[in-house]
């Protein structure tokens, strides 16, 4: 085979492979809904500034693999602009291989437990990222504290949990 033909063949092959990979990437990149994601303990309708309140969610690990979890809590204020350092967030991740007890936010007998650190990246946006061991059932409990002189207002809390797997 002529050298030019060989080069053209190789070029076409590489292009085809790249297109296939990008196509697959596009398909896989589309986020899927986290299985079993639900609220176990919700925030109260009213909060007193300076106190700590918990919110708990559970979800299932869709693959029996270690995953990277990214949890983002976004706090917005209705009337005023959010400032930094108004809230503080800590969290604990509990995990079980078998379904945990159905008691609300039950944390006893967990097979895995890890305290998570949330950093306030921007005013009111708290981020925690880390690798999580492969357990099927997971429970994330967030403890949300506010400064005592927090402005009375209506606040909206949005928690987004993202799991990423490397295939």
């Amino acid at each position, binding site marked *: 085979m002529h050298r030019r033909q060989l080069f053209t063949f190789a*070029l076409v092959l590489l292009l085809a492979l790249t297109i296939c990979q990008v196509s697959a990437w596009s398909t896989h990149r589309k986020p899927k*809904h986290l299985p079993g994601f639900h609220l176990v303990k919700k*925030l109260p309708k009213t909060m007193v500034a300076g106190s700590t309140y918990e919110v708990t969610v559970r979800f299932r690990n869709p693959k029996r693999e270690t995953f990277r979890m990214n949890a983002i809590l976004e706090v917005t204020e209705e009337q005023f602009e959010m400032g930094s350092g108004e809230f503080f967030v800590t969290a604990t991740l509990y995990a079980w291989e078998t379904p945990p007890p159905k008691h609300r936010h039950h944390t006893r007998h967990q097979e895995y437990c890890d305290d998570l650190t949330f950093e306030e990246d921007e005013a009111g946006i708290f981020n925690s990222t880390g690798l999580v061991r492969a357990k099927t059932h997971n429970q994330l409990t967030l403890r949300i504290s506010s400064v005592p002189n*927090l402005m009375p207002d209506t*606040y909206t809390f949005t928690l*987004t949990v993202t799991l990423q*797997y490397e295939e």
Partner: protein
Amino acid sequence: MNKKMLIAVLAIALLVGTASAALLTYFGRITATVMVSQSVKLDGLGYPDSMGVLDEVSGVAGSQIHGDLHWLTNANPDKDAIVSLDSTIISGDSDGLTIVPKFRLDAVVGEDNDDLFVIPPTTTWGAFVSVSFDYFITEDSVYTNTPHVNIALRDPDTGEANCLIVSNEMPTSKDEWLTVTFTKEWIEANSFLAFGSIADTDVFNSISIEVADGSGVITTEQVQTVWVKNPTIRAGSGPIPLSWFRVPHYYEGCNVPALTVHFVMGYDFAMNAAAGERTVRTEVTYQGIYTQGFTWTP
């Protein structure tokens, strides 16, 4: 050269495509809307509706007059609050007028956590001038018992009371005001019993003032009405313009609800005070959460 570059670009594109393809993402999201209310309120109102007292005072030289009764409540379910009072004379002559907030000690009776006045950790004993209080022995109180007031200075490191001074004034009638003033030389006062030593340390972070009758407080009827003037700190010695004090949360184990702190603003007119009306605005500011040992959160 061009061919090599082209191959290199394609190879990188292939690698990027392969690497990107490895990410598989799942996500879940919840949203909640919450009303946040203030933990400390003045006369039932929080900021921005009110967290201040406005008094128009006109007194005779050499007299003391009081403003209206106000109250502070702490809605926080599990933490005490530190509140500061800062007064400003917004009209009238400031010469010869001393503003003295006075607190009724019916909120912290008989409890261990009775640090009513809080002092920043940098304040030294040498900065103190005095603290004083008035008893009013009301008719329905158990006036036959000896009322006493415990005053303790707390060590910021251990939280332990370093010095305890107990007053033992005996009322002589049913309705009587007793005015007691402790100065820096408290321990030398003959009419009081003193335990411990103030010489062990020169830094304190709180004064606790506790009132009780001689046999221990059981019901509200046994509480003597005591109004405490804020501890006087020498100017420039600490960041206390007027007064910092504690608004306790409700404690179920206490027979006396510890949810409300009553106070009045006192206005002392010096003998040489000029005549005329003054308007005084006192701001009440929520400074933070109180914990033993004066650890601020955050």
